[in-house]
């Protein structure tokens, strides 16, 4: 009888299995055996990159020479150290180093005695069965993980593939790839109204359109160069949009080098009397050339426009005080652990900086749930951007729209997020796709 090759007797040689086999063998006499599991798998995804895990593992190097212990690097990214008559102090020293390396990850925010989320000791002389069960369970999970097909291996961006991509992009009409997202201000705690709309290029859509097998991953520098080359194309695309598509105030992400081009000067002329502009700039662009930043800011201010510093996190606020740059607006990035980090005593400096910037100049972005808005409102932040707001505005629009019976909320939200193309044309009530209603929250 033929076996189903996908499930029958599929055994993978994983470190989990090696660990379990080792633990099984020492079951005859587990006295004086200790094990410690360090739960690196519980770190934030951004802290579990290949590079960081490689360096974390290196911290265990000093134990490798001690023949009393064996180190298992599990496929889950957890690390288990197993040994007889091991010196706990040696291991604790390594764990301390790890704690320092990952000190900004909430997993390491524990007080003495509460470390169990980060690591766990097992005395096999007393709790052998429990630990063996854990090992068995981990083997099962590891096998499940291995059975899942790996994602396709993607071609990385290289200078040559970037050159090809640029040529391909030059021939494309950018219109269909321009997306927009609203920034909503709350002049009162329960009423949100459109402040301005950010127009940007959907790089994922563009990537798909250009090539089936080159992804815009790999060197971020090359990716940023690609974005820089798109700046002037975006200006063009915006100018060609129908009036109804554009709100009275728009924002664009631009490189500082683009702001001193004749094309941008012409764009400013075009904006005159038509729309108000907010230019969003990246921190590293500013740090690359301070003079260019201040020059750009002055150019914009002279024409009555504004400049916004994008992408601020609790981390960046610890390193640099954005208020030094005299920007009109500063955009913060919401992450689920933000409240924990800011409310922790170590977040004092961050709170202080937010105050010095001025709560009325802050925009909280990536708000994909209600908590991000509620928490921020409580702290005095009143401008927001994110999927949650997109949905709210779509919902309000649909409630006012007599032709919305056949539409879903997801469809409406999606249609409102693009400025041209088939998706947008699917809307049964075109004037409503550009409608920017006030939204009311139930709170006051």
């Amino acid at each position, binding site marked *: 009888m033929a076996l189903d090759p996908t499930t029958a007797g599929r055994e993978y040689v994983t470190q989990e299995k090696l660990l379990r086999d080792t633990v099984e063998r020492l079951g005859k006499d587990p006295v004086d055996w200790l094990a410690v599991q360090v739960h690196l798998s519980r770190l934030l995804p951004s802290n579990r990159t290949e590079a960081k895990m*490689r*360096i974390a593992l290196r911290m265990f190097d000093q134990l490798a020479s001690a023949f009393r212990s064996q180190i298992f690097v599990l496929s889950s990214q957890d690390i288990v150290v197993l040994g007889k008559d091991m010196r706990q102090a040696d291991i604790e020293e390594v764990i301390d180093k790890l704690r320092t390396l990952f000190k900004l990850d909430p997993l390491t925010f524990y007080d003495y005695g509460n470390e169990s989320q980060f690591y766990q000791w097992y005395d096999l002389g007393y709790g052998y069965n429990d630990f063996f069960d854990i090992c068995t369970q981990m083997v099962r999970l590891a096998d499940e993980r291995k059975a899942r097909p790996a994602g396709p291996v993607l071609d990385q961006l290289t200078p*040559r593939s970037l050159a090809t991509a640029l040529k391909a992009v030059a021939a494309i009409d950018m219109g269909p790839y321009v997306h927009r997202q609203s920034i909503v201000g709350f002049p009162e705690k329960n009423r949100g109204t459109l402040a301005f709309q950010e127009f940007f290029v959907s790089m994922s859509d563009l990537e798909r359109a250009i090539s089936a097998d080159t992804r815009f991953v790999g*060197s971020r520098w*090359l990716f940023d160069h690609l974005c820089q080359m798109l700046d002037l194309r975006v200006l063009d695309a915006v100018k060609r949009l129908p009036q109804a598509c554009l709100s009275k105030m728009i924002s664009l992400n631009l490189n500082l080098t683009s702001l001193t081009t004749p094309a941008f000067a012409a764009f400013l002329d075009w904006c005159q009397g038509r729309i108000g502009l907010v230019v969003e700039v990246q921190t590293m662009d*500013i740090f690359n050339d301070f*003079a260019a930043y201040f020059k750009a800011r002055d150019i914009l201010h002279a024409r009555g426009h504004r400049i916004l510093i994008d992408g601020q996190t609790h*981390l960046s606020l610890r390193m640099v005080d954005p208020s030094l740059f005299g920007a009109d607006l500063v955009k913060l990035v919401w992450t689920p652990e933000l409240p924990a980090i800011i409310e922790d005593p170590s977040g004092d400096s961050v709170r202080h900086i937010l105050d010095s910037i001025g709560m009325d100049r802050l925009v909280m972005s990536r708000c994909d749930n209600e908590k991000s808005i509620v928490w921020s409102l409580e702290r005095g932040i009143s401008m927001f951007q994110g999927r949650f707001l997109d949905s709210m505005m779509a919902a309000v629009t649909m409630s006012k729209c007599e032709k919305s019976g056949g539409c879903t909320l997801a469809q409406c939200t999606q249609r409102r997020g693009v400025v041209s193309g088939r998706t947008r044309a699917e809307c049964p009530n075109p004037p409503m796709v550009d409608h920017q209603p006030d939204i009311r929250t139930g709170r006051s």
Partner: protein
Amino acid sequence: MALFAPDPAKRTPSSQESLLVDYLFRLENFKKGRRALQVNLSKLEPQNKREQHIRAAASSFEPMVKRGDGQLFTLTNSDLIFVFKSEADDDVQAVVTRLRFMFADDSLLLDDIPGVREQFCFWYEIARDYEQLLERAKSLADAEEMKRKQSENVGSQFASPQQRQGGIPLTPELLGRIEDALSQADLSNLVRRQSVCAIVGRAAPQQVSTELFVSIADLRATLIPNANFTSSPWLFQHLTETLDRRVLSLLSKNDDRSLTQDFSVNLNVATLLSPEFLKFDDNVRSASRGTIVIELQKTDIFYDLSAFMFARDFVHERGYRICIDGLNHQALRFVDRAKLGADLIKLVWSADLPEILANDVEREKLTHLILERSPGRMIMCRCDTVEAIQLGQSLGLTLFQGRFVDQRLYDITQQGLRAKRLGRR
């Protein structure tokens, strides 16, 4: 017997041909124990010498180049010239066998009889054939330069004003070509050293450390003169990352005893998180780590702060120190060394600084800033005149680096040597 006057200034070192000439000049006193191989790819049939074929053939030499066994030059006509140490002869023979196989169906190879009728490649014994090879290289370089000048004259008519002003902008294609050239180049020629010295009052400079760096200016001059790096800042950053890896592997392999400690090197954050850095770290004596400084650029630091902090904590744990490079007096205001957790800062001297600081308010601001940032952790760099030292000292600084510092150090060393010699008599 001709007398060769190596005069790099006469020739803009922009082509592989002129690089070959310069390399041969440097070999003048080291002819023994070296050979050269010329692979006549230019004689292959057109369909067999497209760019990918040339690149594939050139890459066969890469392992040897990386090991330091020799240097490869890919000429404009597609011929390859590999100059190598005789010890590597077997390896080179193996590559030639491979190349013969690669192009086996080309009529050139069918016509070729190794040892009897060499068409595909040609061997030189440097000790014996030096002048012949050098003459050949020079005429090739001259021809190439003439061709290039002609095309430049044509091209410049159509260059945009921006291009004519700022030079050739760095494009992805150009970057690709530079990276290919880098992977084959022997960078040890381009690694420069500059001393960091403590200069207090009028006392002689005391050397504290040596900075190792690949002179970007030299790199630009050798690979693409007139390149404009500022319009494509992100491509430039990518290039520095590529350079990093080469410099690290150079340092890992180096047998120069003066480079085991007390030096600093420019690296990118991404490089610190790479396997190459771990390999470099393995090769450094643990006692030396405390004397090695890793210099980071501010653009790179702020690119990904989380990566920077992780890398910083990691290298600190290993014992290295971190220096933030290249801040001018304006940048100093925005970059807080202590907040960033860096150990040192480099403040850039510029000729207009005295004028700026003639203004009392500005001077007061800068003095205050320096005090806040700890003058003992600040190095004034690019000091090419005595004015720089004087100004730096007036601001409370004691650590300096630059052409003037190197000159002073050299003068004093010479004085010392002379005194010693006199003393001996």
